[in-house]
């Protein structure tokens, strides 16, 4: 298992659950956890689900990606409530997460990864 993990936050449960299937192809040895939708599985985000995704992740240092603006605020609240070291990126959601997965799998360092993520920042 790689030292860095990834957490994925989407407004849509299916998107959050589906995306790891793409990332796992590029990063089979990465712990990937996801949080999608509200507590009732409606469209939205849930701080509790995000916190659970952070805690369940097998890595202690995590890279977090989210889809649209409001997920970010719940992510930040969850990060505040967790002891884990979570880095939050304002990149294109799927493209940023895929890039991170490919690089973590190749044992790139966090600073190398962040360098490659920089041009994907759009939020």
């Amino acid at each position, binding site marked *: 298992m790689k030292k860095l993990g990834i957490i994925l936050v989407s407004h849509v449960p299916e998107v959050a659950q589906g995306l790891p299937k793409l990332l796992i192809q590029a990063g089979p040895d990465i712990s990937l956890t996801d949080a999608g939708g509200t507590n009732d599985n409606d469209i*939205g985000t849930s701080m509790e689900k995000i916190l659970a995704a952070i805690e369940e992740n097998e890595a202690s240092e995590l890279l977090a990606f989210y889809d649209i603006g409001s997920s970010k605020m719940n992510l930040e*609240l969850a990060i505040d409530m967790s002891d884990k070291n979570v880095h939050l990126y304002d990149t294109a959601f799927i493209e940023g997460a895929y890039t991170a997965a490919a690089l973590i799998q190749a044992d790139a360092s966090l600073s190398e990864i962040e360098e490659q993520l920089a041009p994907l920042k759009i939020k």
Partner: protein
Amino acid sequence: MLTAENTQEWMNKFYLKIEQNKDYLSELDTPIGDGDHGNNMMRGVEGVKQGLAQLQDPDLKTVLKTIAMGLISKVGGASGPLYGTAFLEMAKKSSDTQDINQLIDVALAGIKKRGGATEGDKTMIDVWSPVAQNDTITQQVIDDAIASTKDMLARKGRASYLGERSIGHLDPGAVSSGYLFTALLETEGTL
């Protein structure tokens, strides 16, 4: 001055206003958002009601924290973490002071930090900020603040995706924040 008791009364009044204006809030969220603000806030105040009902003789800090957690866990949209952060900050500060003006100041700072928005971005901040700035909160201050969001161009939240097209609509979170402060005005002893 906020107390455990009048804060709970404040929340009862807020609940009733949201219940009565749920559809209007969602309608406001339709042209410049995703049309769920009324339902989001209704779930939120329901969560607050349930949380408060479980407390036994709580102190003010516990009341404020319970409100925050109810909003954070039930709203499901951007307004959840924002209102939640506002009440979390009030809870923290309530050890030092129960003065409503000072508590609103820290709440506003929390909203700004959480959402990265500022005055003029067409968000709830455009109601919270004038309310915080005025020493005496009046319905006039609240109404003017709400109305001021109409001509603003949204720079944060979902409405910002619309760019110029966001102009000409009231911000739904500004309107729901207006209900919060009207409810406060109507709660004896809080000011």
